[in-house]
C-alpha cells in the first residue's frame, strides 16, 4: 500500500507514472553517502514508499525558476524571460532580468531573515518573561555570559544584580527588532572599519522589522527597480539577521540554557533504542527541546514508560533542534534534514515533535505509514492533518508531557517492524566563542591570540565556515564531507553549524584523531590544543558565532582591520532553504567570500549576477561564489584565502624576531 497522496493524484496522470518508473531505477547509493539513510531508503523502497530523494528525482526543478527568470510579483504576468538570452525581452511592466532576479533574491532574503529573527524574538520573549518572573521553569543559567553580552553593548554591569542587567539587556536587544531609527545594538560588535564601510553604503540595520518590511515594500510591483539598490537593502536586511536576530537567538539561548562547552556526543540513527520510547525532536528553536528534556527526566514519565515495558525515554535530535542540544547537553543527534523521512522507516520512532522551519509536509504522512505519532507544537507551523499540541513557554512541560504520553502509547502498541541502523558516530561538539577563547589559553590567558598567531605563521592557512542544509538534489553529505576533507588537508581550520556539521560528525571528522587527515601545520595545532580539525558550533542561528569569531580575529590583530581582510571563506555546499540565502548574504555583506553549491538563483552573465559575484567585492564587501564539485569548491576557497594572505604579507616565511630593549620600549607606543 502507498501512503502518499501524491501517488493517488499522480495515478491519474500516465506521464507521471512513466517518470516515476524511470526514477525508480536511479541508484539509491547515488542519493546519499550516509549509510544509515541509505539502509532506510532501501527499506522505504521495499516498503513501497517514496521520500524526499525519490520525489526530487521525479520532479526536475522548474527550469525558469531555477535561474530566477520568472516574476510573479503582479498579475499582469506571471512573466518569464529566457535565461539563454536574458536581455532579449523584459516583463510586461518592463522589468529586466536584473530587476526580476534581484527581487526574487530579495524575497528569499526577507523570508530567511524573517525566520531567524522571529526565532530570535521568541527567545527574547522568553527571556523577558524569565526576568519578570512570568516564566518560572527557565532561568538565567549563565550569568557570566549575561554580563559579557551586556558589557559588549555598553550596559554597565559592575555591582549590579542579574535582574537589573537582564532587564537592561532585554530592552536593548528589543531594539534589534523594533527600532525604527539608528543602529541595532550588536553593531557595536562589528569591527570599526567594517562598520565604517556599512555606514558609507547606508546598510547598518535599524531594526529587523523595519528592514524586512522595507525589503518587502521595495520588491512590490513598481517600486525598486535598480538591482544595485535592491541588493543594498538585501544586505541591510540580511545583516539584521546575522548581527541581529540570529545573534540574539544564540546569545539568549546560551544565557538561558547554558553556553556550550565541548563534550563527547554521538550522532546517527544507531542511537535509537529498540527497548526504549524513542522521541525525535525536529525543527529549530531550543525551547521545545528544553521542555522535552525536563519532561523526559520527570520520574512520573519514566514510570509511565516503564509501565509500558520500556527501559526508559530516549530523546533524539534532528536538524537544528538537535544541533542546539547536541553541544549544549550532549543529547544524541539522529540525522540531518533529508534523513527525517528515512529515520521514520526504522519503525523505532515512537513520536516526533516539531516546532518551526525545515519541517517537510511529507513527514506526518510518512509517520502515519509507520505508526509514528507526529505533533506540531508551534502556532506558526501547523500541518494539515497533523495533531497540534501547542507549546507554551509559561507551561513548558505541558506539551512535552502530552507528547511523551502519546509516544509511550505508541511504544506499547508498536506494530511496525523495527530495523535500526547500527551506526553510532561519536565526536566532540559544542565549541562556543567563549570556549574557543578558553581552550586557547585557559582561564588566565584565554584569547584568540594563538589562533591569529598560527594563521600568521602559516601553520593554519585560514579558517573556513562550512555550513548549511542537505539537499536531495545532490548526494547527501558527500559534498560537505569531501569539501571539508580537502580544506583540512590544506591546513584550513573548519568551523561548522547546522546540518553540515552532522554530515561531518557522521564521517568521524569531529574526533581529535581526524587531525591525521589534516595538513602538518593544522595537525600540530590540533595536537597542541587537543581539538579535532573540524569544530562543531551549533545550529544555523549559531552562524552568528562565526561572525563573532571573525570580529574577534580582527580585534586581536595581525590579520587586517576589516572582516574582508581575513584569510577566511564560507560555503553552504548542499543548501536548500531561503534562510541559507539570507545567511550567505550577511556573510558576504560582512566581508566573507561565500560559495554555494547545488544551484544559484541567478543567470550567469547578467549584471545582477556580476554584482553578487564580483561587484560587491570591489565595493569592499565579500562576494558570492558557486561550484558543485567539492574539490573545485575547496580550491576556490583556498585560492581566496591565499589571496588574502598575500594581501596581508603572510606568504613569505618570516624571520624570527628577537626582542631587544629598544623593541620593548617601542612596544609601549
Amino acid at each position: 500500500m502507498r501512503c502518499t497522496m501524491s501517488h493517488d493524484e499522480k495515478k491519474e496522470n500516465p506521464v507521471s507514472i512513466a517518470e516515476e518508473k524511470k526514477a525508480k531505477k536511479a541508484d539509491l547509493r547515488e542519493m546519499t553517502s550516509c549509510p544509515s539513510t541509505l539502509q532506510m531508503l532501501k527499506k522505504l523502497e521495499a516498503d513501497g514508499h517514496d521520500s524526499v530523494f525519490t520525489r526530487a528525482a521525479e520532479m526536475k526543478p522548474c527550469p525558469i525558476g531555477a535561474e530566477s527568470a520568472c516574476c510573479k510579483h503582479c498579475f499582469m504576468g506571471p512573466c518569464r524571460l529566457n535565461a539563454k538570452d536574458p536581455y532579449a525581452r523584459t516583463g510586461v511592466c518592463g522589468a529586466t532580468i536584473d530587476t526580476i532576479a534581484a527581487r526574487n533574491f530579495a524575497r528569499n532574503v526577507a523570508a530567511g531573515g524573517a525566520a531567524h529573527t522571529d526565532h530570535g524574538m521568541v527567545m527574547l520573549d522568553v527571556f523577558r518573561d524569565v526576568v519578570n518572573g512570568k516564566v518560572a521553569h527557565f532561568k538565567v543559567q549563565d550569568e557570566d555570559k549575561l554580563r559579557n553580552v551586556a558589557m559588549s553593548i555598553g550596559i554597565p554591569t559592575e555591582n549590579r544584580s542579574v535582574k537589573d542587567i537582564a532587564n537592561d539587556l532585554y530592552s536593548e536587544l528589543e531594539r534589534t527588532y523594533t527600532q525604527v531609527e539608528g543602529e541595532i545594538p550588536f553593531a557595536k560588535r562589528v569591527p570599526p572599519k567594517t562598520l565604517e564601510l556599512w555606514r558609507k553604503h547606508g546598510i547598518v540595520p535599524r531594526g529587523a522589522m523595519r528592514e524586512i518590511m522595507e525589503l518587502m515594500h521595495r520588491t512590490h510591483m513598481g517600486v525598486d527597480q535598480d538591482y544595485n539598490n535592491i541588493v543594498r537593502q538585501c544586505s541591510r536586511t540580511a545583516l539584521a539577521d546575522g548581527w541581529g536576530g540570529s545573534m540574539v537567538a544564540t546569545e539568549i539561548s546560551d544565557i538561558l540554557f547554558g553556553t556550550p562547552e565541548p563534550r563527547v556526543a554521538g550522532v546517527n540513527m544507531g542511537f535509537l533504542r529498540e527497548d526504549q520510547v524513542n522521541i525525535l525532536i525536529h525543527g529549530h528553536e531550543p525551547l521545545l527541546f528544553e521542555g522535552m528534556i525536563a519532561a523526559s527526566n520527570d520520574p512520573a514519565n519514566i514510570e509511565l514508560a516503564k509501565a509500558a515495558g520500556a527501559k526508559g525515554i530516549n530523546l533524539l535530535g534532528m536538524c537544528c533542534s538537535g544541533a542546539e542540544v547536541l553541544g549544549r547537553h550532549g543529547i544524541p543527534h539522529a540525522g540531518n534534514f533529508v534523513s527525517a523521512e528515512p529515520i521514520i522507516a526504522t519503525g523505532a520512532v515512537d513520536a516526533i515533535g516539531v516546532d518551526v522551519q525545515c519541517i517537510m509536509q511529507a513527514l506526518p504522512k510518512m509517520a502515519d505509514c509507520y505508526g509514528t505519532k507526529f505533533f506540531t507544537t508551534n502556532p506558526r507551523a501547523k500541518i494539515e492533518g497533523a495533531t497540534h499540541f501547542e507549546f507554551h513557554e509559561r507551561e513548558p512541560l505541558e506539551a512535552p508531557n502530552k507528547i511523551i504520553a502519546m509516544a509511550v502509547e505508541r511504544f506499547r502498541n508498536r506494530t511496525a517492524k523495527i530495523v535500526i541502523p547500527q551506526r553510532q558516530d561519536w565526536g566532540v561538539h559544542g565549541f562556543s566563542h567563549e570556549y574557543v577563547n578558553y581552550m586557547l589559553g585557559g582561564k588566565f590567558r584565554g584569547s584568540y591570540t594563538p589562533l591569529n598567531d598560527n594563521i600568521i605563521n602559516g601553520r593554519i592557512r585560514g579558517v573556513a565556515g562550512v555550513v548549511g542544509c542537505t539537499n536531495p538534489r545532490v548526494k547527501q553529505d558527500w559534498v560537505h564531507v569531501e569539501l571539508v576533507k580537502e580544506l583540512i588537508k590544506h591546513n584550513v581550520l573548519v568551523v561548522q553549524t547546522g546540518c553540515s556539521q552532522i554530515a561531518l560528525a557522521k564521517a568521524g571528522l569531529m574526533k581529535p584523531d581526524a587531525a591525521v587527515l589534516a595538513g602538518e601545520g593544522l595537525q600540530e595545532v590540533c595536537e597542541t590544543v587537543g581539538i579535532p580539525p573540524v569544530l562543531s558550533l551549533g545550529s544555523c542561528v549559531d552562524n552568528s558565532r562565526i561572525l563573532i569569531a571573525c570580529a574577534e580575529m580582527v580585534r586581536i590583530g595581525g590579520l587586517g582591520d576589516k572582516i574582508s581582510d581575513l584569510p577566511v571563506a564560507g560555503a553552504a555546499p548542499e543548501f536548500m532553504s531561503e534562510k541559507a540565502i539570507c545567511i550567505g548574504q550577511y556573510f558576504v555583506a560582512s566581508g566573507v567570500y561565500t560559495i554555494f553549491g547545488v544551484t544559484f538563483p541567478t543567470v550567469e552573465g547578467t549584471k545582477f549576477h556580476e554584482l553578487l559575484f564580483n561587484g560587491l567585492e570591489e565595493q569592499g564587501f565579500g562576494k558570492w561564489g558557486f561550484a558543485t564539485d567539492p574539490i573545485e569548491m575547496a580550491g576556490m576557497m583556498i585560492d581566496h584565502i591565499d589571496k588574502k594572505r598575500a594581501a596581508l604579507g603572510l606568504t613569505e616565511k618570516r624571520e624570527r624576531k628577537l626582542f631587544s630593549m629598544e623593541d620593548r620600549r617601542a612596544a609601549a607606543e
Partner: protein
Amino acid sequence: MSRLVAFAAIQGAYNIVSKAEGKFKQAMDKYGPNQPIGFPNTAFYLPIIYSILGIKIEKLGEAEPVMKRCRDLLPKHIKAEHNIHLPYLGGTLDCGMAAILAEEVVEAIRYVEDPDFYRLGEECDVENKRIWLGAADDTIMRKRGIEFVDGSAPGFAAIVGAAPDPETAKKIAEDYQKKNLYIFMCANQNGTSFSEQLVEAGVQIGWPTRLVPFGPDISAAVFALGFANRAAMAFGGVKPGDYKTVLKYNKERIFAFVNAFGEVNAEWAANAAGAINWGFPTIADTDIPEILPTGICTYEHVVSSVPYDQVTAKSIEVRGLKVTITEIPIPVSYGPAFEGERVRRDDVYVECGGGKTPCFELVRIADMDTVEDGRVEVIGPEVKDVPVGTRLPLAVVVEVAGRKMQEDYEPILERQVHHLVNYAQGVMHIGQRDIAWYRIGKQAVDKGFAFEHIGKILHAKYHQDFGAIFDKCQVKIYTEEANVRELLSVAQHAYRIRDERIEGMTDEGTETYYSCTLCQSFAPTHVCVISPERTGLCGAYNWLDCKASFEINPTGPNQPIQKGDTLDPKLGNWKGVNDFVFKASRQSISSYNFYSLIYDPMTTCGCCECIAAVLPMCNGIMTVNREYAGMTPSGMKFTTLAGTIGGGNVTPGFVGHSKYNVTQRKFVLGDGGLARLVWIPKMLKEELRDRIIKRGDEMGIANFYDMIATEEQGTTEDEIYAFLEQAGHPALTMDSILG
C-alpha cells in the same frame, strides 16, 4: 604529542594541590588561622596570589579561599570516552596555575615552620651550607629589578633540576652570565641540584653573581615567578588582581624561560604548564614531547632534547630574546653578572689601593695627534712580575680624543671604570677616583689576566658604548710608586676643577633639559625630566649623562627639551616641559613641578632611590632610601610607599628622588628646601653626611646635620617631634608646609 605533556601536567597538579591541601590543614591545626604568614620584607604579600587573584594574605587562615580556588582550577583528567578526548590546552594551563598558587602557600608555610630554611639577603653562606635564599625581599627586587628595566639584565633563566655534572653546570651558568641573564635555580634531580653543582665547581652563587639558588624543591619556582610579578606591579604599575595584564606584561617585557635539566616528572610538568601562563617556555635536555605552535608564549612552548652546548643559545632564541654579547679581548669571562662577584682576601693575587697603596683612575681629553687608538701601556711591574699577595700602587690614566669629545664627558667615562673593570671574572673593583681599590684574584691570574687587560677592557667597552662621542682612546697603567704619586696630584687637581664646574651649573642657567624614558620598557607611562639641579630619581642619570646619551643615540630615550617660558620659578614649572610631558605621558599628565612634593610633584616610577613624604605634624618632610627595610614616620615602609606612588602618577605629598638630589640646592625648594628634612634613615644620613653638613652650612643653619632625626629617635611623628623640638629643628618654626 602534547597530550602526554598535558596528561602529566594535570596529574602533577593534582599531586601538588593535594599535598598543599594536606600541608595547609596540618598548619591550620598546629598554628591556627591567625598565624601570620608571608615572605620577608615585602609589600606584595604572597606576590603571585596577590598579583593574580588580588588576595592579600597576611594570616594563614586567609589562604583558605586560595586553596579552594586551586582545587576548582584543576581540570578533569584527560581520559578518552569512546576513544575521544576533549580539548586539553585550557585545562593544562589552568592546572599549572593551580600548582603555582598552591606551591606559594606551601612555601609561605615553610617560612613559619622552618624560619631558618632560607637565608635572608643576597648572599649564600656556603661554608655553613646555607645556600638557599628563598623569596627575594623588596630591596633586592627593586635593586635587581632595575637591571631588568634598563636592560643590563635582559631576562632570567629558571633552571630546574641538575646538569649531568658540575662542570656542565658551570659552563651553562657562565654562558648565561656572559649573556647578562640572571639564573634562578630550584628543584633537584635525585637529590642533586644545579646550585650545589655550581658550588662544587667553585662558582660563587647568590644575587651578586646573578646565580640565585632559590630552593631545593620544585615549589621554589614560585620565587622566580613571584619576582617577575612583583616587577610587573612595582615597575609596570599593574594593579593586583588584574591577572590578564600581569601575565601579558610578563610575556611582553620579562624575558624569562625555564630550563628543565633531567627527568621531567609530573610535578615539573605542572610547573612548566604554570610558567607558560606567564609566556615563559620550557627548554629541556630530555626528549619530552615538544609543543611548537606559538601563541601563549611568543614562540615555541616546549622544546626538548637540546644538547648542553646549545642550550643557552637555543633558550634565548625560543624566548625571542635579543642578547648582545660583549666580546672583550681578555682571558677571563666578562659581563655584568660578574660585577657582584667577590675576590676574598685568601684568593687575592695582587691588590692595589684600598688605603694601603696609592691608587686612582683618571679619564681626560687629549689631542687627536697624541692618542694612538687601542694602545695600552703598562709602566712598571706587570702582574706576572710579582709574587702572590703583592700590593702595588696603581694609576689608570685614560686619554680620549675625538671631534665630539668634550670635557663634560670625562667624568661620565671615568665613572664607568668601576663597573667595567668589575665585569671581568675574578677582578674586583671598589670606589672611584682616588679612593679606587682593585683586587685581582688568583684564578684570574691563572687564566692570564694582567694589568694590561684593564686597558683592553676600557678601550673596547668605551668604543662599544660611547663610540659616538670620541674617536680614539689609549690607556696608560702605572704601577711604580713614584709615577703614581706624581700623577695623583694632577688627578686631584682635575677632580677639583671638574666638581666646581658641575656644582656651578644651575637650572636657571640652562635652557635645555633632558627627558628620560629609559624605564618605558617596564613603566610605559612614566616620563622623567632631568635638569642640572634635579638628577633622575633612579640615581643613575644626571643632566650630563643625558646630554651624552643624546649625543650617542639621538633617537634614544634621552631627548632634549627646551624648557621654554618659566611659569612658576619657585615650584619649578616650565611651559616647554609641560608640553613635552603631556605628550610623552600619552595625555595623562599636563603639568608637574620640579621643586615641590606638595603641589603637583614630578611623577615617580618604581625605580626611585628614595621617596620623600610630608610629615604634617612636624611641619616637615622625611625621606627613605630603598635599602632601608624598617618603618618610617609616614606610617609606611619604603616598599609600601613605592607601591602607593609608583607607576607614573602625580601624588601630592610624595615624590621619588635620587640620593644625590637630597643635597642639591633645589631639593624641594618650593616647599622650603632641605631645611624641611626632619627624618632620614641612619644609613642614608651617614652616606650623605659630608654633603648634608656642607648644605647645612650653605643654608646658614649651624649643626643642621645633628637636628635630623633617624630611626634611633623614633619611627612615628610623635616620637621624633620631641627630638626636633629639643634640637631646635628649623622646620618647626617655618610656615605651615601645607600652605
